[in-house]
């Protein structure tokens, strides 16, 4: 299988770490782009994201990346990996920045942890949820191959996704609540954590993505 990856660039921060992690994981060719043709030519797509949701959604729509995603996910049915704010952008709406409509590719909401945010024993938990937390796998998936349930991944976020269909959740984290660490639907896999910053476990997940045929 060829491994030509398009990393969707909507000008919201550094995508080099995603690109170099994909190269490290064995991608033949990684293109950081928002060009329609480049994305059509790629055989898989990564949709990263950092920063505030309002600016992200403005940039995504302004550059036509919403159409690119629609094309990749629904029309061409390519394997798509969405990361962090990329994952959040796929949902229906986010509470961040006073409430922002998102792409509605995956029905569901993006909600704030709360301030103060407390654990089940009443202890105060810092927000953002920043650092390495364990991801419990809810079901098998090709992208979990070679990764044990309970492995640590690197998170940094203050909002988390709640998909309408709870069966889409393939991994959870525990941080005062059981949150969605990863979701999967057909050819889409999305992570709240950053595989590109999660050392060996993250590289394994990216390697799995590169050989994934988009079914599960």
């Amino acid at each position, binding site marked *: 299988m060829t491994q030509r990856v398009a990393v969707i660039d909507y000008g919201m921060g550094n995508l080099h*770490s995603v690109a*170099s992690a994909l190269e*490290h994981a064995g991608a033949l060719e990684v293109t950081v782009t928002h060009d329609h043709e480049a994305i059509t030519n790629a055989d898989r797509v990564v949709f990263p994201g950092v920063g505030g949701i309002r600016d992200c959604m403005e940039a995504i729509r302004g550059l036509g990346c919403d159409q690119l995603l629609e094309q990749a996910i629904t029309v061409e049915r390519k394997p798509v990996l969405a990361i962090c704010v990329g994952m959040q952008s796929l949902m229906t709406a986010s509470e961040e920045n006073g409430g922002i409509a998102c792409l509605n590719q995956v029905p569901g909401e993006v909600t704030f942890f709360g301030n103060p945010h407390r654990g089940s024993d009443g202890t105060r938990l*810092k927000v*953002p949820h920043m*650092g390495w*937390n364990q991801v419990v796998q809810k079901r098998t998936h090709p992208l979990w191959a070679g990764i044990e349930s309970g492995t*640590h991944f690197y998170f940094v976020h203050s909002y988390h996704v709640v998909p309408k269909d709870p069966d889409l959740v393939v991994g959870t984290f525990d941080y005062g609540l059981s949150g969605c660490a990863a979701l999967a639907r057909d050819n889409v896999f999305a992570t709240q954590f950053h595989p590109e910053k999660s050392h060996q476990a993250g590289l394994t997940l990216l390697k799995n993505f590169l050989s994934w045929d988009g079914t599960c």
Partner: protein
Amino acid sequence: MALAKRIIPCLDVDRGRVVKGVNFVGIRDAGDPVEIARRYNEEGADEITFLDITASHEERDTTVQTVEQIAREVFIPLTVGGGIRALQDIRTMLNAGADKVSINTAAIHDPNLVSAAAARFGSQCIVVAIDVKRVSEPGSLPRYELFTHGGRKPTGIEAVAWAKKMAALGAGELLLTSMDRDGTRDGFELTITREITDSVDIPVIASGGVGTLQHLADGVTQGGADAVLAASIFHFGEYTVREAKQFMVSEGIPMRL
């Protein structure tokens, strides 16, 4: 199941070379930050902090190149600090591959830099470094103030109020260094660490004074820190990062092993 506490080795880099001495067995070049970052990454470091102490602006290009090289092969979060004065400096470092930047003196001169940076790049990548010294007499109520220029220049700014202000302006994390303890190997200044971790809702990294593995554990269990930063105990090869993490686990602290 809990969020792990973090161990962050710190590289002090001057003109592209790690200073403060690094003494690894089997390392080819003790001063090469890329090679040292790679080593810490292999040992299980949770993040790496790269502190640029280069005096002159002209030599900053070396730093950018070094950050690029590290980011190409080390897939854990990388924080870059030192000489960050403007939004453009942040953009440059993030483009080079840094995940976070640490702002220190520039935040004192212009606190709005923190809010502008958080609005532009997101709070998740804005760390505010706070260098403090105890200014109260022994026996009196402890008071800590911010100092600049490596602890030589007082600012009169009270530390806890400043920490709260930085959090309110959008800092995503605080890097708290006790200038009284830095380099002493006497352990973290736990009083101010605890006071600040209890006062803000964002994560706090404790720094300054680590001489033993017990000190690292104390920073978390007594200081309440979310992460602990150390340089010399790792540089001189006394302990590996993995040994430090194993010790912390034996103290009941959740860690990623």
